[in-house]
């Protein structure tokens, strides 16, 4: 596979972008940072599919496409289905020798938002993982149904206000905790599963490359801060991602073959989750005295999860 150098940013920057500008994602949206990085970490041909969501509608504004690759625009739930169908077709045609260039390396990638990944496309994704196709599924996790106005998803953390789980005099926002999609995907026995973040560009590029190189179904959850629904200034996307990884609200780690866990980033000074929550409008109400217990709960869950990750890593099983 023609992976590109990610030794340092200067070398990485010599890659030729394959996601073009004049898409219509909000200024400062992290979705395109993540997608650009995926496309820049290889020179191979790419066949990409996208579930409906912000990325999909914003990169295919009729009559334009922002994709310099084969790209399949599909329903809310079937990016995994569509791209694994293409993968099978490619395999068969390769065997028969009926491809225009039988030796050209091709990688198959699906992008889905959290709404489509954690909820609506969940069984389609699970099926594709179980069938063992050679593809990589990347979830752009902005913790809400952003494209339709910010409804809660099963990726929305407890305490966030969303248009369907609103904070007010009688509610502190969403009552349920976030689903642990990384653990669920690892439980499929997938050869490579990871959680990555765009502020840590190098571990993200390396993780993407690992997933592309690994034969079989790989899954990556990426943190994708959403300036509109998380309510922060567009210029602060990377700063917010820093707070997410420094507070361990989003730990960065990988799981190989469903069991071997490696932590990919260890903050030198772990910050309190207050700093992360306080930087976003969607958590503003939690700082009222009567909601303090929710912040305390989030913090104690983070602490427990971090302990669990470290123990799992030490166990080397």
């Amino acid at each position, binding site marked *: 596979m023609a992976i590109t150098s990610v030794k340092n*940013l*200067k*070398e*990485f*920057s*010599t*890659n*030729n*972008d*394959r*996601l*073009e*500008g*004049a*898409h*219509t*994602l909000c*200024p*400062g*949206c*992290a*979705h*395109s*940072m993540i997608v*650009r*990085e995926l496309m820049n970490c*290889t*020179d*191979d*041909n790419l066949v990409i599919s996208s579930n409906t969501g912000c990325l999909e509608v914003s*990169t295919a*504004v*009729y*009559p*334009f*496409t*922002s*994709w*310099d*690759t084969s790209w399949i625009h599909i329903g809310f739930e079937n990016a995994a289905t569509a791209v694994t169908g293409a993968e099978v077709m490619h395999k068969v045609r390769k065997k028969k020798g009926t491809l225009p*260039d039988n030796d*050209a390396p091709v990688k198959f990638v699906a992008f889905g938002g959290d709404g489509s990944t954690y909820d609506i496309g969940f069984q389609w994704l699970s099926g594709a993982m179980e069938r063992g196709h050679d593809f990589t599924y990347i979830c752009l996790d902005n913790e809400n149904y952003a494209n339709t106005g910010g409804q809660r998803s099963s990726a929305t953390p407890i305490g966030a206000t969303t248009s369907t789980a609103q904070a007010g005099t009688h509610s502190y926002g969403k009552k349920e905790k976030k689903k642990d999609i990384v653990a669920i995907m690892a439980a499929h026995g997938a050869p490579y599963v990871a959680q990555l973040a*765009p502020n840590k*560009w190098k571990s993200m590029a390396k993780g993407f490359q690992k997933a592309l190189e690994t034969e079989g179904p790989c899954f990556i959850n990426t943190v994708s801060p959403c300036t509109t629904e998380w309510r922060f*200034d*567009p*210029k*602060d*996307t*990377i*700063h917010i991602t820093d707070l997410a990884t420094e507070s361990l609200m989003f730990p960065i780690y990988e799981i190989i073959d469903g069991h071997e866990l490696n932590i990919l980033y260890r903050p030198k000074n772990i910050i309190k989750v207050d700093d992360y929550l306080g930087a976003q409008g969607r958590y503003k109400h939690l700082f009222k005295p009567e909601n303090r217990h929710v912040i305390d709960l989030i913090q104690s869950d983070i602490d427990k999860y971090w302990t669990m990750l470290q123990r799992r890593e030490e166990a080397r099983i």
Partner: protein
Amino acid sequence: MSVEAQDLKLLANDNRGQSGLENGSGLVGWEEVTQGSVLQSFDGNATGIALKKQEERAYSGYNSYTATVASWRIIKPVYNRDVCIDCQNCWVWCPDTSIISRDKQMLGIDYDHCKGCGVCVEVCPTNPKSLLMYGENTPMEDALSAWPEKKKKEK
């Protein structure tokens, strides 16, 4: 870099940003599009596009590269080559593919695709910064001539 160099089309022979999003080339109403029609994103053979730089590619009028979102901007980043260390932070984190870098060098901003989010300014590590936000209508020379001095570290 001189003001002229920043203003000119950084990439030669190029059809970048020609059309507004609402008037793409060959645009017909959706009800006139017949089944099976194909809108190619490149003219001719697109093989090996990953190995070609933007200025070497034959973008068709259906590639959003040829469209512009410049009208979205109310503030714009201005680039000062004198302070830049070519670290490429701005390149890796620009969400709109609007930092033009070639051969490990930052060349300037693609004002047809930049939406003025300000991310590049935030991630620029130099002191003073090599990128700063100004009002969309501020002339480049005014911005560059009043560039701030190096800031002392606050204690």
